[in-house]
């Protein structure tokens, strides 16, 4: 399987996810949307597996390859949220966001080759990046919740249920961020000699982590404002974006290579 087949697989998946979204609004049972979502995920998963095999390395090296995982995990996060909390709108929103990343990948494909630099050849590589991508998807989904909440504002009925849903998603998300970050630290010790060197990427990972810690602790007080909580979520997600790809454009990142030598 090569990158050339991405168009067919991704369009097939998007179609299945779209059907799943529509069926969630039409059908009373959750089983129909579940089946179509799962079908799309399997199809997309097959492409990732095929790419992995043909590249003879985990497809996690380039920015486009991380986008690939993101567009896989978002619909999954949407599905899990829907199954647990019954909010239908999370389905089309995650599909839409996933489609954005798929389109970026089609319009602006990466150079995929088999070469993997020695530092990346580690058993930590795949779990570290995959768990991070999963957390990004989950936290992306909860950002949609935050935006939804802030836009709807007063008109929302069951706000406490939405807040509890957001809490659950953030707890799972920050758990994965913590796991990904610490796995990265253990790996860095093995590859570069130190577990934390405040390289720009690491700094922004720490900032992201602190952002979600603020949310968790703020929410512990029952009298905390829901609106402020949602705004914290959006700020934290901006930090996450900087960590994911924004660092490449920062002046401080020019030094990144020096700190790694």
């Amino acid at each position, binding site marked *: 399987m090569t990158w050339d087949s991405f168009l067919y697989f991704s369009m097939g998946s998007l179609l299945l996810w779209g059907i799943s979204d529509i069926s969630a609004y039409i059908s009373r049972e959750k089983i129909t949307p579940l089946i179509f979502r799962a079908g799309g995920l399997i199809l997309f998963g097959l492409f990732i597996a095929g790419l992995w095999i043909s590249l003879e390395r985990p497809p996690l090296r380039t920015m486009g390859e991380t986008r690939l995982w993101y567009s896989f995990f978002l619909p999954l996060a949407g599905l899990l949220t829907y199954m647990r909390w019954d909010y239908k709108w999370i389905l089309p929103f995650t599909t839409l966001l996933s489609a954005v990343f798929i389109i970026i990948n089609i319009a602006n494909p990466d150079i995929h080759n*088999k070469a993997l630099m020695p530092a990346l*050849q580690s058993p930590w590589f795949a779990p570290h990046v995959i768990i991070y991508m999963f957390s990004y998807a989950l936290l992306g989904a909860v950002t949609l919740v935050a935006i939804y909440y802030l836009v709807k504002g007063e008109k929302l009925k069951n706000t406490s249920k939405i807040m509890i849903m957001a809490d659950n998603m953030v707890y799972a998300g920050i758990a994965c961020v913590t796991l990904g970050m610490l796995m990265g630290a253990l790996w860095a010790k093995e*590859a570069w000699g130190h*577990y934390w060197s405040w390289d720009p990427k690491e700094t922004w990972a720490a900032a992201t982590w602190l952002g979600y810690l603020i949310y968790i*602790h703020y*929410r512990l007080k029952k009298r905390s404002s829901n609106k402020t909580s949602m705004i914290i979520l959006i700020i934290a997600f901006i930090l996450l974006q900087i960590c994911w790809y924004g660092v490449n454009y920062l002046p401080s990142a020019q030094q990144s290579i020096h700190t790694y030598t």
Partner: protein
Amino acid sequence: MNNSSRKIWENPWGYPEGFIVAAGVVLTGILLQATTGKLNPDLYAYPVNVFVGALFVIGLLTIYFIFNKSRSVRWFSTVYSTLPAIVVLLVLCIILGFIPQFPITAEESQLPLDFFSSLGWYQMTTSWSFVLCCFYLLIILGFTTLYRTTRRQSWRDIGFYLNHLGLFIALLGGVLGSSDLVRLTMTVSKGNTEWRGTTHKGEIVEMPLAIQLDSFIIEEYEPKLVVIDNETGRILPEARPESYMYEGIGKKTQLAGISLEVTDYLPYAAVFRDSVHSNIVPMKMDGSTAALKVKATHEGITQPVEGWISNGSYLFPHSILQIDENRSLAMPPQEVKKYSSHITLYTEEGKTEKAVIEVNKPLSVNNWMIYQYSYDDSKGKYSDTSVFELVYDPWLKIVYIGIVMLLSGAIFLFVAGPETNNLKIEKIAEIESDKIKK
């Protein structure tokens, strides 16, 4: 208990006091930076850091047990002090992420002279404000954890202790241990034994161990072909450069609009040039280069072009194959797949050990870790020297205890979720409606 009718500094303290105290911590740091100059980590190396750490922990415990009835001490174990402390640390992290950082070894004169340098923020992680913030967070973490033991314990507290005590241990170990960290490089050439390391400042240090380099091996990926513009040398198509990695003789492919067929492959070749053209012959020796023979066709040309392409080595120049006026086929240097040093290690106690060191596979001896660091670039895969990095970090075990606790705490959080899950939904609705009434 309505917070708004309360004057500032009047009990119970809330977020405003939290932000004032946290800002005060940063301000103290800035003042210290201005008066005492930059924090020199060497001054806090062993045994000073052990002393500081012990004093800190004993101090926390003492204050806690003497004053645990005091409302101010109690306040240090609430969200009202926690949140501003994390916010302030986050702000410092963001600044750290935006402004370029300089190594601790950098001289004063190498730093830009502006507002940030007087705050010490070009070396943020060793600035007074950053370090004090970390300690302030540690104080809160310590009090929170201690205070938590006084309430009735439930299974949820396991997660709390794993996360908070874990972070306390990892952070304290990391902050105090950073001044004991030693990183040296050691360059060894094949057949020789070396026991001297070089610090980042260029000082030579004698080590309690010696490394003999028995052999050094580099494995490379298969060679790649690219089409380049004759004039600019850029890889085509310029918008999205393509490359083709060798897959076998007789394989055909399309590259930047040109059809290629690989007709021969020499992993070890020598290039001889006479006045007219260059000859490529198989020859296995130090300095031989990889070469691919390729037949290229493209629209508008009836006669295919065929010839050798190689990426050269320190001994031979590279060879390209011209397709037409504008384009040529070329072979970029091969990417390194793996490099490994086969060594014999001698320790002070007279132990001898054979080992292989690779990237991601360091060797650990006593408190030292030996890493494959680099090699002689100019000779590429024929390098006969290997560069190692030797790292000494006696605090690593403490930090790892903290990291493992945090990892377990994260798994706990993932499984258990927020505490409100255990509350009845009606109870939460009640709180919500209270909020609306207010």
